[in-house]
């Protein structure tokens, strides 16, 4: 039997203690073991960004991150970003501007954009484009995604 030591970390602001094999990636841990399905599985290869979460506040591809590596750290998923009521400015702008179509890539973009605006409340256009360059969207052509992030930045200003 592979070892399933307990892994301890902060998940969306609350302590979690869960068994985690050494080879288990964070994406599986979140989706399968902890039933947080907002984080999406697009490629398992770090090429699409659908599985982005924040680890200690930094956008991180959960499909390439071993669960054990978040021991003692803080993980924020799309569920942790979403307020109990209503939407964040980024989420609201995505809906209003049509930056989400099929929606499968959207949590990854929201996570990435949320981190960007926290660190750079007034990003330039190029900074926004660069920030989401690791996220793949096949529906929108990205224009509305970039516009939504810029709109959210303006509104928060």
């Amino acid at each position: 039997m592979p070892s399933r030591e307990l892994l301890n970390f902060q998940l969306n602001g609350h302590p979690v203690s869960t068994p985690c094999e050494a080879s288990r990636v964070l994406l599986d841990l979140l989706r399968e073991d902890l039933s947080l399905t907002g984080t999406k599985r697009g490629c398992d290869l770090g090429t699409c960004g659908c599985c982005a979460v924040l680890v200690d506040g930094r956008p991180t591809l959960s499909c390439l991150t071993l669960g054990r590596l978040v021991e003692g750290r803080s993980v924020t998923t799309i569920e942790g970003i979403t307020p109990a009521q209503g939407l964040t400015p980024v989420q609201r702008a995505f809906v209003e501007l049509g930056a989400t179509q099929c929606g499968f890539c959207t949590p990854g973009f929201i996570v990435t954009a949320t981190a960007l605006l926290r660190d750079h409340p007034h990003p330039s256009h190029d900074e926004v484009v660069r920030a989401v360059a690791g996220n793949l969207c096949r529906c929108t052509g990205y224009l509305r995604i970039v516009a939504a992030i810029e709109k959210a930045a303006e509104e928060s200003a």
Partner: protein
Amino acid sequence: MATTTPPSYRLLGGPIPYIEGPLKVTGRAEYTDDIKRPGQLVGRLLRSPWPHARLKSIDVREARATPGVFAVLTGEKYPIPFGVLPITHDETAIAVDKARYIGDIIAAVAASDERTAEAALAKIRFEVDALPEYADPRGGVDRVAEPIHARGLNGTNIQKEVVQHFGDVDAAFARAAVSVRVRGTFAGVTHGFTEPMATIAEATPDGRLTVWSATQVPHYLHRSLSEVLGLPMHRIRVIKPEVGGGFGGKSDPLPHEIVCAALALETGRPVKILFDREDVFYTNHGRHPTQNDVRIALDGDGRILAYDIEALIDGGAWSSFGTVTTYYNGVLGMGPYRVPNFRYKGRRVYTTKPPSGAMRAHGGTNLRYTIEVALDELAERTGRDPFDLRRENALPPNSRTVNEFLITSTSFVACLAAARKASGWDAKFRKLPFGRGVGLGCGFYISGSNSPIHFTPKMPQSTVHLKVDMDGGIAVHSMQADIGQGSNTLLAAIVAEVLGVDLARVHVQRVDSDVSPIDLGSYSSRVTFMMGNAARAAAEQLKAQLVRAAAERLQLPAEELEVGYERIHRRGDPTTGLSFLEALHAAMEPVGALTASGSYQTKAVGGSFKGARAGTAPAYSFAAYVAETEVDVETGEIHVEKIWAAFDCGRALNRLAVEGQIEGSIHMGLGQVLGESMNYRGARLFNPSLLEYKIPMPQQMPEVEILLVGADDPEGPFGAKEAGEGPLIATLPAVGNALYDAIGVRFTELPITPDRVLRGLDRRRAEGRVWKGD
């Protein structure tokens, strides 16, 4: 002459954010893989490592004996062939007798967990005879040693051959003032949706089977499950959760969906099959690798005299939509210009490669590129502006093509005018410095296929049911599939528009074959047009019930009433009336909850010759795009700076969705023209990942200026036509022709990669042809 002002609407025509948007931006939208059933097993597929092989014997004893394995399936248990088109059922759930490509499913297991399933697959032993690999369709047009399918034409690998001739093409070329010939070569491309396929199936002791699947066409899946599994349709329930993009790739009933259901039947337990990205690439069904050969003749006045077209289409291992593909690669040349003489020979050939199928702007994209490049060349040779040449040849409204397509509304000429003006064409064409250029590309596309794929039993193309109870919430049932294009939102908006109610009253129910009336699903850009008309008809019925009840309560003739916002009142006098809820409760008093059903059926159009139905549609969209590009002549890199997209989708009912479709289409079109390619060594796909199959990144997107110039279509719902596929087509030739303007090289092989740019430049210089001083 009387002129009419088009009506305006409360909701329709404006930007309408997606009703499920808040679920998607919070991760709460439920996709198939987000569902977990109690006791669920893991289904895994074994894929053929051989491009073509006879399966002599399969030993599954060891796999079956593995602890934690609940079932091992091979092909012989469910051998009934299926396929999306009733006339070409050539797929089986699992390979029977032969494997036909690297990636073909040859066995499946259901096990307690992923690791056990993978271990069991590794224990299955095969004895096979290797058969010849057929990677190049050119090798399959003559008799072959071992046809991939017994149904290939006369011992060849030809799946479908189409020969059509209208008018007299040879005579037209004989009297032509000028003609050109362009031969195009197109790599295969794939959909690249972000959600990998996933299916869950569960057989229950009441003798029913429930299947959740990421599908664009729940009804065809429903039919195929019934046919292959031998269960009546009413014992099967198909549910479509949220779908993370399709673009045609989830429109065939797919073998893994049937395998998953079979494993559920075998084990009595829920089974989930979740694809990884490699599975998605091997399943493919993307745009066909194609070679085409287009000759166009003009008379001395610049009028098109004739098209002479040939196409060789690489089908991969199965038919899929291939018969339609073969027709479309010719007949979708019939617009947007008048073509009085037309000849086409198209062949789709099976190869031992992942199957190609329907991908956004199916059948219309590769042909259009070659035609538009040929027209650009003709404009140059005859000293005409590319816009003028196209305008002078445009099909007029209410006309018929030589193969009897009925063109009703067209604002193509308005598209040309808008794109020319907005792009500043006249100041730029052939006037920008070397390395920079503008190009024009045009297109048209069907707004739904006039003939449904399934026409037995006879039924409408689209049906919508409404139910409203005393709470005033309106439940909408429909089997159209929202795959991100916004059809649920449009459905809700149409119902709210007709009934005059707040959009929040309308709840669109998830597709569930137990309760959703049949709609043929999301492909061929049919949904806005057909479902939209069905939704409107259903809502009008409900409205009539409400108005009748209100008239009785108000003691006024029904004709004197009209619907206002959340109110039914005397025409022009909002104070005399009832609120929506009052009218609803009055109408419900004798009958309880109100229900209504609306449907849409296409009218018969088209000729009576063989294949006449292919390409007929109740309406067509039109497009004229200008691309402005810059080429780095040192590295061969192409930068598309801006695209002006003039589009005629009739009335745009949801501006946000239409603009999103156009921008997304441009992105996908740019992918095909600039870099996407399914790369093969022989029959082996060697880039089955998003790392090596390069979809354009955010920084590669140009600025896009959208010009919606369509006039209301007479038959579309509230004047609308399609905007989901047509917007892709014009992107490719606009870029190709802009590159010619930039550096004087005609690119006829896609994708146009930097090495091809450099080779093209070298070739032109070697020919001694000077372009803009270079």
